């Protein structure tokens, strides 16, 4: 009875994952989809605790105190950190959670192998009988550890604790590490008695995970996180193989496949291939040269706060282009206030959202939604590009690469071919940045040197506050 009920619960869980993911892909049903998947997960977890029986001994699970202790601690930590995190640091949080999942998968492999090698020593199991299991354990360990180490580095990079780091021949060294880890894995499958090799594989996979993410620029982190996300999915599926557990298998493979597709979609939004993201170490300093130098000498023009406020005051249509600078400065609320002040003065205000503005696709929408900016004011890239012609002032808040005309007209540029917001079609462009430093792609932006462009340096939040104050006096 219990085991049949467990099967039904797992079936229910698997279906909710599929339905939930499907609903997550459309704006109207997304939230419900998330809750449905969460309910399915809760049912599957509770069913495992109370109904699972060991297939060999037929016994129920024990160590309930440990299990509930773990669930309780994990639940509290997870909820608190998820509730407390600022909207701007969402990407880091997702990366961190992903790392936890990867670590969980790796730990499972370690314990299971430990269990297995004990039985091998006692002679209760034949080597040939455990080889498929060892294969799954090794795969779970390698993928889980890479995902864990990589996610931690990605997390560190997004919050600025870890800097880009690369050296010549790094890609080859990385591949060598991976190859050795895989080779050791094969050796372990052939001779599972060599327990210590497992720890060698663990160490190599962790090192590989770190080195793999290290050289990739911060702008590409979302793609990397999405890729590692699908890795963890596959690692979870390995667990499903191990225990012949269908809900782990379906959930894991589902995320593995969906995550891979999502990764590809993200790359497409930037008009780059996955390989280019992973191997190109885009954003490294060595590419700054060529594209930048010819524009370096040209002077740019600065504009004062009061002039900027004046220009916007007398415009009929203002388009705001938010970017990562807005996110760092937490300027979304004051940005919404500026929008309200301008609208009171009869100025039409809209937002032009580039699909990869900020640190993650959709990042800007989340942020502006937090500040109560109305949904229909957010224009997608194609619509926005049609409207720039009739726009008087474009106010760029900490965006750079997504408005760089080099993507359109400089084939030598590393971002050539990426669709951009064509802000130079508007009458005036005001660019708020903290300094002239290039954006994540590490290249100069010719837009800043155009005659119709004016620079307004400073922290996005402070600048917007001053502009708002200024506008109120006009």
């Amino acid at each position, binding site marked *: 009875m219990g085991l049949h009920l467990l099967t039904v619960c797992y079936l229910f869980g698997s279906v909710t994952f599929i339905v939930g993911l499907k609903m997550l892909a459309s704006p109207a049903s997304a939230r419900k989809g*998330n809750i449905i998947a969460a309910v399915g997960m809760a049912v599957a977890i509770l069913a495992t605790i109370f109904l699972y029986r060991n297939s060999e001994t037929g016994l129920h699970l024990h160590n309930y105190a440990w299990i509930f202790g773990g669930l309780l601690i994990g639940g509290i930590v997870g909820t608190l950190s*998820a509730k407390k995190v600022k909207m701007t640091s969402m990407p880091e949080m997702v990366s961190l959670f992903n790392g936890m999942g990867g670590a969980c998968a790796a730990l499972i492999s370690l314990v299971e192998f430990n269990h297995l090698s004990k039985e091998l020593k006692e002679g209760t199991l034949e080597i040939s009988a455990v080889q*498929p299991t060892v294969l799954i354990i090794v795969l779970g360990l390698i993928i889980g550890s890479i995902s864990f180490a990589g996610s931690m580095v990605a997390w560190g990079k997004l919050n600025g604790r870890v800097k880009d780091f690369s050296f010549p021949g790094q890609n080859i060294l990385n591949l060598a590490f991976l190859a050795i880890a895989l080779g050791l894995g094969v050796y372990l499958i052939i001779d599972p008695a060599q327990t210590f090799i497992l720890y060698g594989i663990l160490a190599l996979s962790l090192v590989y995970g770190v080195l793999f993410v290290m050289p990739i620029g911060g702008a590409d982190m979302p793609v990397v996180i999405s890729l590692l996300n699908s890795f963890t*999915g596959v690692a979870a599926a390995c667990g499903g193989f191990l225990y012949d557990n269908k809900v782990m298998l379906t959930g894991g493979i589902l995320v593995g496949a969906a*995550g891979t597709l999502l990764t590809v979609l993200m790359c497409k939004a930037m008009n780059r291939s996955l390989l280019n993201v992973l191997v190109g170490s885009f954003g490294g300093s060595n590419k700054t040269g060529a594209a930048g130098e010819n524009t370096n000498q040209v002077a740019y023009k600065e504009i004062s706060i009061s002039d900027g406020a004046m220009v916007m005051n007398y415009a009929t249509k203002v388009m705001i282009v938010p970017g990562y600078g807005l996110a760092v400065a937490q300027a979304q609320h004051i940005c919404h206030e500026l929008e309200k002040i301008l609208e009171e003065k009869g100025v039409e205000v809209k937002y032009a959202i580039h699909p990869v503005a900020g640190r993650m696709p959709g990042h800007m929408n989340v942020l502006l939604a937090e500040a109560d900016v109305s949904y229909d004011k957010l224009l997608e890239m194609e619509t926005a590009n049609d409207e720039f012609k009739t726009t008087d002032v474009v106010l760029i808040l900490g965006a750079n690469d997504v408005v760089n005309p080099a993507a359109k007209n400089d084939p030598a540029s590393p971002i050539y071919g990426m669709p951009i917001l064509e802000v130079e079609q508007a009458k005036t462009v005001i660019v708020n940045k903290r300094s002239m430093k290039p954006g994540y792609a590490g290249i100069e932006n010719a837009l800043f040197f155009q005659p119709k462009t004016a620079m307004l340096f400073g922290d996005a939040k402070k600048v917007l506050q001053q502009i708002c104050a200024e506008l109120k006096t006009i």
Partner: protein
Amino acid sequence: MDSILSFISANQQIIYIVILMVFVGIEVIGRVPSVLHTPLMSGANAIHGVVVIGAIIVMGKAETDNYLALTLGFFAVVLGTINVVGGFVVTDRMLEMFKKKKA
């Protein structure tokens, strides 16, 4: 050769699941607007937290005197739960904001 074939037929159920799930996973998010990329990634992130079930099984099977297994298993349960709970809560927070605008 023979052993490979027998492995496949012994595990055909699992292999079917894997293949079908790959297609389902791809099909399900085939046409997702870029606005939803971040929440979708976060939601998928929570779903692979299903790995915590494996951790629970490890934990529940461990002998009460095997402290290595207990400790590692305990950490696995904690980390897996953080992944699941945190993942769903963060996704809900993101989506809550989208919802409010629609009303």
